[in-house]
């Protein structure tokens, strides 16, 4: 098996800021390369056909379903996964608002959902409600009914930094 593996061309790309290279079948799914060859298991598989968005990553800044992307297509690109959102142990703003506003329940859609939110906010830093809904429409969540996720994205777009207590106070209706 290792002999066969050596025959595959090397694919090089940057993942979460670090140069990585793998020798894998060029049509291997980027999802599997990230999970199996690079140990980035924060990238989840929900459907394997590009419907649920759990495997969402940013490929050169573009939101893609990594279950539909062959590894070859990532050659020379930059990939951002959930593991690359936090910097030096500090949660990214979008992670903080998901955590504090109830944007994660079972957590399986959360990595992909946060990358969809990140992609939206990079393109449109001040989205309105409809734009947030549209921006998240490719990512399915079965737990939340999306309300708290929408809150988290809106909050992330409104404040450059968060203060946990004040964020939580606001979100709870009486």
């Amino acid at each position, binding site marked *: 098996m290792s002999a066969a593996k050596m025959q595959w061309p090397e694919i090089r790309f940057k993942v979460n800021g670090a140069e990585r290279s793998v020798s894998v079948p060029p049509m291997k799914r980027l999802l599997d390369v990230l999970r199996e060859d690079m140990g980035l*298991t924060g*990238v989840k598989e*929900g459907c394997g056909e590009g419907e649920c968005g759990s495997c969402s990553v940013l490929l050169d800044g573009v939101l893609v379903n990594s279950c539909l992307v062959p590894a070859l297509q990532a050659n020379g690109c930059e990939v951002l996964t959930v593991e690359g959102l936090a910097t030096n142990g500090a949660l990214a703003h979008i992670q903080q608002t998901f955590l504090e506003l109830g944007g994660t329940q079972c957590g399986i859609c959360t990595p992909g959902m*946060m990358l969809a939110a990140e992609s939206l906010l990079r393109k449109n830093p001040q989205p309105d409600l409809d734009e947030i809904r549209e921006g998240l429409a490719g990512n399915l969540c079965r*737990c939340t009914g999306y309300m708290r996720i929408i809150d988290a994205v809106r909050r992330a777009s409104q404040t450059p930094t968060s203060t946990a207590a004040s964020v939580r106070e606001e979100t709870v209706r*009486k």
Partner: protein
Amino acid sequence: MGDMSQTRIVGTPALRREGIDKVTGGARYIDDIALPGMWHGATVRSNIARGAIKDIRFGAGIAWDEFVIVTAKDIPGENCIPLIVDHDQPVLAETQVNHPEEPVVLLAHPDKARLHEAVAAVEIDYEPLPAIFSIEESEQQRTIVWGEDNVIKHFLVEKGDVDSAWLRAAHIVTGEYHTGAQEQLYIENNGVIADWSEADGLTIRGSMQCPYYVHRALLRVFDLPTEKVRVIQSETGGAFGGKEDYPSMIAAHAGLLAKKAGRPVKIIYDREEDLAATTKRHPSRTRYRTAVDREGRLLATDIQVDLDGGAYATVTPTVLSRATIHASGPYFCENIRIRSHAWATNHPPHGAFRGFGSPQTIFGIERHMDQIAKAVGISPEEVRRRNFLAQGKTTATGQEIRDAIDLPGMLDRALKISDYEAKRLRFARENATSSVIKRGIGVVSFMHGAGFTGSGERYLNSLVGMEADAAGHVTVLVSSTEFGQGTNTILSQVAAEALGLSCEDVSIAQPDTQRVPNSGPTVASRTTMIVGRLVQDAAYALANILREKKLLGEGYSAAGFRAACATYTERFGALRVEARYQAPKDIFWDDAAYKGEAYPAFAWAVYVAEVAVDLRTYSTQVVNFYALQEVGRVINPLLAAGQIEGGVAQGIGYALYEKVVWKDGRMSNSQMTNYIMPTAVDVPNIEVYFDETPCEHGPYGAKGLGELPHDGPAPAILNAIQNATGINFTSIPLLPEDMYLRMVETPEPGTMETVECVK
């Protein structure tokens, strides 16, 4: 204990305990785990609905000697997944299959990629047998596929004298309502890893709700003593009932492969297998015949409930029970008869899904109440107001309501919050001049019993453990699982509150049958109310031990607690307590007559849905949704609101989007591409409100709320659609094509209604 006294932590939006792991990608779900030397497993399933197995052949072109192959002959113990009925669903079919996608052969190989073609190369020869796929076919009993009469379970509930009431009626209103199967659609598919060794026996790690259900099943399948089976729940990516019973099956499969292979084996379903092979919500048919007086007061109700149970019993008897008890709604009626049957068919077994039978019958009664209102000539809200249950009145099973529940007050509040009256007038005015968009608003009221039905909690006899170490850190030991709904956080809050500590001073042990006692399954809206109360009891017991040893005073600080734990541990060793369920003394239940206190407590709700129906596309958009509920004390308002919103979204899917398309007993749309659930664009703004009346049975007055929000949305939406279009739609899911067909078949609005006017 059932009080609203000042609390520090209960009632606050404490952060989700495992939240940081979930937002960083660090949470480890079963497919994120690999054991050394692990192989991968796959399942060969039946491709017919019913037939005798004649031969199993392993086709050419596959290096079969590289595979581990398991059939029913490899099962060391009983070939059965025990749950409620003995000799029920086999682990692997041996002589006959009874539904499509029934497991027959298991394969394992080190390379996951090789399994797909190997599964396809196994050929099973059958002698086909006649199969049935509907309640109607099953009740005709021309083809018997279960027992002697196809009846998996039946109940009869009788209160008063229904038969003598019809002559006194001003109106008799009849109706028949249908609900379809619904997939739980947790985003993490089912999966387990099994590990086997002669010394330790079988260890299962996996995505699941009920570790002790899996444990019990494996003891019988593998014929092992208790200590030789260990079940550990890994992080679980949604469940909603769909991981209540099926994980026992997958665990048995992976275990059989691991035992034969002598190495760990992982089985992870892909979406198509998970959709086609595992459980769904029971399809239902409910029939109501109701006598009312001139003012619309209920005189008598005769109800028939019929469920499609699928090919094996699994949890169906208890689903039917809950469906039956909830079928008469939150209304008082002196004369009620409910006859209910669960019918066997050759569908894969239907199972648990949030609400567990109650969304089906609440759909029936809440659609029916609107038809009664129409027959009497009063508004939908008025017919409800005139018939509400109240303190001192009795339910269908004769349970006297002890809660100080104020349903008329809740109805008023929900109508005000939603601006119901003004919208109803405005929509009527606007609809008269709009030929394309018709707007409507609908209201429902309902209740949901928390905990196991009847004597169920007594049989469960749940046990909770709690430990404190020398540093004063407390660990809660429960088999109750977290799968997104908030178990870890809620139980931490209860323990921290009771001990005078902070949430960070408390951990919830990973559910592992070798470490935690059996606190019962994580189902039936029971975890906060029943298990939470035991956690509170254990916390008090723990503090009392420290007091008895004179290490703590009546009032103490967190530092004082830590010092006491250090001293206790040094002098006496480990500090550990247990709390066992004790049935409330005033709860009586007669299983034979189906009479008595069905549940220790009910949650109550009034929901309002606002819709816009587009008569060009026949599509319905839910424009606004208002959810008011009384759930006792809310332990964590953020998580509670998240539960309600998520349940409402699933209910919207149930009503308008989610259709299982059956073909010869198999789900033919077993992909997320064509089984459609709501997206962020489809779910409206959901406004959530709580009334909090403390309940004496739960910790700090809490009741269960997890299933409640799935009960109301579907009938509320269809009531709103009737308000918008004038048409009495009686079936869900109501997709645009269903609405189109119904409107073309009966173009005159309202002609489907069956109202007999007696006087």
